[in-house]
């Protein structure tokens, strides 16, 4: 309903129309704020990350300030040692990326199977009564602050579950360990996978199910051979969203997995994710403009670009599945 004037004439109509246009502009300005936020994120991160690499901020460099290379792009993106506080500092971001990917991939192994099965149950099997309490419970699980998951990791997952269980097999487990981070991030992304996958499964028309039943398929076969393939792009969209959440997850992994950056595939030692480094850096006393301080923005920019890529992919996936069954 695009309509922007009043065809009537009479006392006050002109004034009403003027007010209508004014108000419309105010609301448009509100919408513009959201676009400005995205632009500001790009601008601010680029501006400050530039200073990490070249010792002066991008806008200063454009205004003619001296540019002096501090850290090379190649060194940053391919270096395998991240030690900003060391006497001989190194700025290779790979250990942090390694930590983030370890948590993300590990968490996906928990959230994807459990979330998908939960979605199948909710969409294909659950009675309205069961749905009535299961869905709100999952919403609560999604609403628990991440700091609480972090506390749960160090007060329960590590001491009560990970250490005794893997200790029994002779594995030594650090106080901070990636495994606890994987478990809590996996748990907190289950509701994302479950709710978005369920939406996709609900969008599958009943005709498809009935046709399969007519051919003699069992309920399990309808679930796995019809509903699952039919909603696959929506399900993948939910996986991407869960992965994107896991990449940006901060407090739970900081508390659970620790502050020690290293290249490792061992989930039982202390690691550091990109987000955990940012927390550590923000807590430190480094002063603005120093290379340590500006590294915050270089890592932040990389994190933002990673989640942005995930979000764009998710957007594309979602549009695909929406068009499937119109």
């Amino acid at each position: 309903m695009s309509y922007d004037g009043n065809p009537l004439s009479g006392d006050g109509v002109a004034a009403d129309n003027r007010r209508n246009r004014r108000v419309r502009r105010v609301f448009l300005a509100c919408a513009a704020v959201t676009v400005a936020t995205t632009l500001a994120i790009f601008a601010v991160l680029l501006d400050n990350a530039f200073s990490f690499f070249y010792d002066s901020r991008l806008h200063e460099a454009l205004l003619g300030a001296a540019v002096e290379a501090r850290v090379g792009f190649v060194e940053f993106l391919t270096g395998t040692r991240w030690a900003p506080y060391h006497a001989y500092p190194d700025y290779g971001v790979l250990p942090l990326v390694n930590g983030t990917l370890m948590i993300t991939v590990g968490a996906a192994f928990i959230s994807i199977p459990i979330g998908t099965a939960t979605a199948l149950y909710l969409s294909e099997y659950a009675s309205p009564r069961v749905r009535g309490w299961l869905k709100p419970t999952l919403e609560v699980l999604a609403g628990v602050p991440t700091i609480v998951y972090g506390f749960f990791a160090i007060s329960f997952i590590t001491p009560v579950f990970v250490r005794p269980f893997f200790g029994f097999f002779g594995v030594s487990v650090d106080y901070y360990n990636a495994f606890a981070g994987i478990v809590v991030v996996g748990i907190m992304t289950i509701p994302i996978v479950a709710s978005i996958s369920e939406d996709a499964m609900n969008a599958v028309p009943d005709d498809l199910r009935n046709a399969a039943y007519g051919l003699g398929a069992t309920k399990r076969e309808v679930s796995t051979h019809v509903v699952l393939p039919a909603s696959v792009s929506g399900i993948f969209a939910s996986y991407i969203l869960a992965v994107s959440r896991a990449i940006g997850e901060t407090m739970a992994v900081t508390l659970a997995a620790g502050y020690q950056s290293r290249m490792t595939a061992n989930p039982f030692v202390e690691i550091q994710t990109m987000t955990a480094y940012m927390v550590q850096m923000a807590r430190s006393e480094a002063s603005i403009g120093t290379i340590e301080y500006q590294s915050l923005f270089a890592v932040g920019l990389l994190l933002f670009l990673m989640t942005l890529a995930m979000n764009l992919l998710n957007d594309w996936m979602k549009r695909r599945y929406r068009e499937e069954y119109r």
Partner: protein
Amino acid sequence: MTAAEAPEASTTEAEDSWLDVDLRWEHLKGRLFLAGCVAASLFGVFVLALLIADVLWEAILGVVQHDVSIRTFLTQPASRHADQAGFYAAIVGSVWLMIFTVLLSFFIGVGTAVYLEEFAPDNRWTRLIEANLANLAGVPSIVYGLLVLAAVVNFTNPLTGGRVGPILLAGAVALALLITPIIIVASQEALRGVPDGVRRGSLATGATRWQTVKNVVLPAAFPGILTGTILAVARAIGETAPLIMVGAILTARRVPEGPFDTFGSMPTMIYYWADRPEITFHYLAALGIVVLLTILIAMNGVAVYLRNKYETQQ
């Protein structure tokens, strides 16, 4: 679906030989599959119960075994001595944050939703705004903190050279940026719930778009908008990472005196305590979580109450 999937042995049984599908095996597979799905669904419920039990257990342990006084905890600011440390300054900080976050995000959020649902033409710019919203909702919260750190906290006045610093208002800006997309989406849904006939009726009487929105659409959508806003603010209250980025004082030893004062908050205080090696601080963190979760449950309760009340009125 076919006999090929069934094991060889069972098809030889006489009573099944007239069928090429072993139904007992199919039923068993079906039941096992259902059991797997039920187990997966209950896993989330089980973990939630475990998490709540763990937090309560640690909090009770702190009060009973380690003489953490609930009275001190609720009325004193933080302290380096565990037995004198309290949560009061952090609670006050969070309440201040909540107020300013709502003030900063509510009008922009609802305004954007009204523009998109009621005024926006269906063109490329509108689609750009909507796509951008979907992206903003997926930006990690820590990035909003980083944005505010660089754009607000580290902003230096070119005349005086003074830096804005880690003030409470900066924290509120970070949280507001974080929840504005959530408020927008919730408000859009509420506005979409208002039937078009109501709008047309109003327009037919000669009202302008704005008069229709102000007098007809917004009042009808308001409960939905309010519910969405409360849920969004509940999300903001539990956010830790953006506040740490902005420079919240982790040990809330002082009650903030206004929006331009330094501040602590509940989640950052919990983080600080939980990360301390001393066990007593650990119990304080558990107690802090109990307080935080109680507030969140209360806010969610109000939101659900409003939603139910509104739904029965319809």
